[in-house]
């Protein structure tokens, strides 16, 4: 037998095998089983499409999916989640691609540009969450160095926070590039012997705090609440000089703590004027930091956002009934 003939035979055999497998798969997959039912008239509601921006942190995801779940299952909206950074979300409200931002942290520049400037977005009121920004240490440090939560003692402990990145001074770990920080000015104006080092991302910050608490190594870093990680490791805030209105007016000379943020909702003007029932839901949505942390914690530990939202909704009708009335 020539090699060519063997090859042909071989090919035929393989072909037979493939055909057999394909037929088998078809029989297996096709025979019986439920058929696909089209239902052209979706939920008969006036809601239509509802585009929810989902900014990239888990707490936001929690709020977005609870509101989204209610909009989908109670109002019959066609809810679309769009994973976007903050600024891109605001941009999207101008072009009709985003209807709502459910948790907004200040962002004076964007307020100026999109709310006061071209009026494509509107403030839909506070969402009940209080945003705290500041400097935090892991809990073990507070037990060992009780005075450490007072900024006046920070210089005394600076040597603890020295790392290979901080050039002989204590390291103040700044983090997420999305957050506004005055930390370089604060270090200078409070005459602290620290150097700001940029972790570069939220995972970078969380990993640092997680490791610090586990191995009892010192870390001082910029962090914020509400944040699911706070439920895992309850970081303790360092008290900087108290915030007073206007003390952060000049960013060069700022020497006070960050203000407490009243987190609010932002909606597209078109959406607000559309008469969509989803707008009323967004407008009335309001819950506490604890509520959010519960849902966010579930999501962070592996639950699908929809499932986590559903679980909370089932357990707390007394809270969300008010948002739909």
């Amino acid at each position, binding site marked *: 037998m020539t090699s060519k003939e063997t090859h042909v035979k071989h090919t035929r055999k393989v072909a037979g095998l493939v055909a057999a497998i394909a037929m088998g798969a078809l029989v297996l997959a096709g025979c019986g089983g439920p058929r696909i039912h089209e239902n052209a008239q979706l939920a008969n509601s006036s809601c239509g499409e509802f585009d929810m921006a989902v900014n*990239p942190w888990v707490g936001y995801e929690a709020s977005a999916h609870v509101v989204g779940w209610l909009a989908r299952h109670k109002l019959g909206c066609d809810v679309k989640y769009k994973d976007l950074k903050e600024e891109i979300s605001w941009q999207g409200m101008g072009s009709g691609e985003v209807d709502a931002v459910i948790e907004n942290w200040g962002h004076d520049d964007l307020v100026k540009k999109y709310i006061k400037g071209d009026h494509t977005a509107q403030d839909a009121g506070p969402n009940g969450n209080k945003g705290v920004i500041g400097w935090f240490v892991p809990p073990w440090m507070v037990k060992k160095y009780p005075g450490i939560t007072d900024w006046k003692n920070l210089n005394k402990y600076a040597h603890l926070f020295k790392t290979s990145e901080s050039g002989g001074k204590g390291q103040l770990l700044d983090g997420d590039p999305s957050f506004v920080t005055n930390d370089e000015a604060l270090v200078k104006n409070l005459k602290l012997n620290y150097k700001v080092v940029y972790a570069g991302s939220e995972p970078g910050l969380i990993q640092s705090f997680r490791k610090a608490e586990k191995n009892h190594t010192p870390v001082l870093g910029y962090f914020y609440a509400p944040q699911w990680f706070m439920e895992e490791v309850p970081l303790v805030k360092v008290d900087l000089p108290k915030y007073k209105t206007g003390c952060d007016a000049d960013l060069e000379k700022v020497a006070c703590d960050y203000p407490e943020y009243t987190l609010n909702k932002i909606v597209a003007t078109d959406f607000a004027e559309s008469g969509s029932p989803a707008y009323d839901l967004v407008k009335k949505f309001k819950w506490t930091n604890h509520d959010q942390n519960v849902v966010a914690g579930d999501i962070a530990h592996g639950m699908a956002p929809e499932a986590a939202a559903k679980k909370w909704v089932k357990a707390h009708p007394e809270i969300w009934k008010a948002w739909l009335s």
Partner: protein
Amino acid sequence: MTVTDTSTDGRPVAPDEESAAPSTPPPTPTRSRRARLAAARVWGVPAVLAVWVAGWLVLKGRDTLALSGADTTSFHRWLNGLRDSFDAARDTNWFLKYVVGGVSDALDASMQWLQYLVSQAPAGRPVPEVGWLGVAAVLTLVAFVVAGLRSALLVAVGLMAFGYLGYWSDSLDLLLVTAVAVAICAVIGLPTGIAMSRSRAFSAVVTPVLDMMQTVPAFAYLTPLVLLFGIGSASAVMVTVIYAAPPLIRVTAHALSSVDEGAVEASTSLGTTSWQRLRTVEMPMAKRTIIVGINQSIMAALSMATIAALIGGPGLGKPVQDALQKLDVGTAFVSGLAIVLMAIVLDRTMTAASVRQEVLTRTGDKHRRVRLALLVAGLVGTVAAVVDSRTFLRAARFPTSPDLGSPIGDWVSHLSKTFVNSVGSTTSAVKDAVTYGMINPLQSLLAESPFWLAGVAILVLAVLLGGWRAGVAAVVCEGVILGTGLWNEAMITLTTTLVATVVVMVLAALIGVWLGRSPKADTVVRPVLDAAQTIPPFVYLVPALALFDVGRFTAIVAAVIYAAPVAIKLVADGIKGVPAETVEAAESAGTNRWQMIRKVQIPMAKSSLGLAANQGLIYVLSMVVIGGLVGGGGLGFLVVQGFSQSTLFGRGLAAGIAITALGVLLDRITQYAAARRGRG
């Protein structure tokens, strides 16, 4: 993977320059001139370094041009203004509204149509128009037709893997974005490549644009891109096109200009027109290489998946980013694995297709009958599968069990935790040693010297190593960096880049020589290298953070993981390329193994070592932004920050430009230096 195909690699090097550098008639240097050049290198480099260090000791900290916190220069604010006027003109400017807007709408609409067809459920229907069985059958049949039976089987297995890993629809979405983007690349790229092969002037104009497209980090222009093309598919496709088109264009131009001249002349003498010649002679002869170019383009497109996810692009990048938010190593790994699988399947299929193309044209179809029979059977089966998958839920929705994704994910999470726990203390020591011993001193020298001292020193070094052309490149690039107002940050980035490149080269020399000498080792290690190169870096950032904390060292580790495979492959191929006769001759002369490596194989593979250094540098530099996410600081962090905060957009874009300037600078110095060494 064909990443080893050096001439076609997606690197920011002008192909014509590459060939021009060695091919310009060498000015037959006299012995004395050659000796003088060598002496300048031997004595000049240490002398410059000594002067630099002395100057640094005296002037440390002066004129460093450091920028603090939220400081911006007028150039950065001008870029902000540019962005704002873009934003304002969106609805009024006819070009933006109708041309750009039209393209954007068309892209969105066609992507949506395709998604409803195969991956997403349209309104009123619980599943896509064609279910998984139909899609799998069609794609397998296509693979059979273009690339043969083996590829068909590979595609079928790959598709099943996507499904059982739990990412059926995300995988198809990524496949769609890649297909649409590469199709656009081909439509734009082929004519551009043809034009470049015809006209030197055109080529000279286009080449720097291609360089920019490949080296300016995508993070830096995501915001304006979204302004133009909106959130979602259209922007995702565009950002992919920008990065994936250059390799295709370069390879097309290269393939056409290296078509055998005799054939072209023969056809010209027959009186063919230019168009006929292109169609009947040049294109068929260049076909195989062009398919390689398309393959390169596909690989580049896949590497944008995680970036496209940041602007609402559909696909596998989404679960990767999502898992990163939760520091979920396992899930990030599984979705990253799906991307790697897709790259492997597409790469092998495209390669098989190009080889088959050649075999068919050369020898004709031997098994025509068998193939035809199989094709008919396949067609019938496919039609049945499509009909089936439109009727029954079971053939429409991918089965949820057995679920391979969750156990693999859990296992990887567990493995990474155990690993971190067991080596955690040693890694800190390594990190501290390298940072204090190497990174800090080097950064101090580069970034704390006055800018004019460092600038002049780098310029003189460039001239000494790479000649006057490297000097010109140095002047231009340093000028650009100064213009961006980010000199100090650029020097910090240069530090981490240099350290990472040294590590990459050490690894390349050690592992590359090993692989080059042992085919067995090569077969085992090469798939690992392929995987390290295609898995999105976001996947290994979290374990890297756990091991080394945030900082420049961690950024360097990430860059090394990404860049070392390319350099290792290049060195291994170079060693393999040493003629067997040479090795045998040396063996019979009684050289031992170490002598063989040092005296025979490495010197003979010198040019590939140079290329490895060059590519290592460029790949390291492309990780600067990712490094910024884990504490690398410097330009990378500014780019990330610019993407995140609207007031800092201009500074981020400027940082992106500075990264490109740094890349061109290092690329030219290493290229010209390597070319000179090859000659002298």
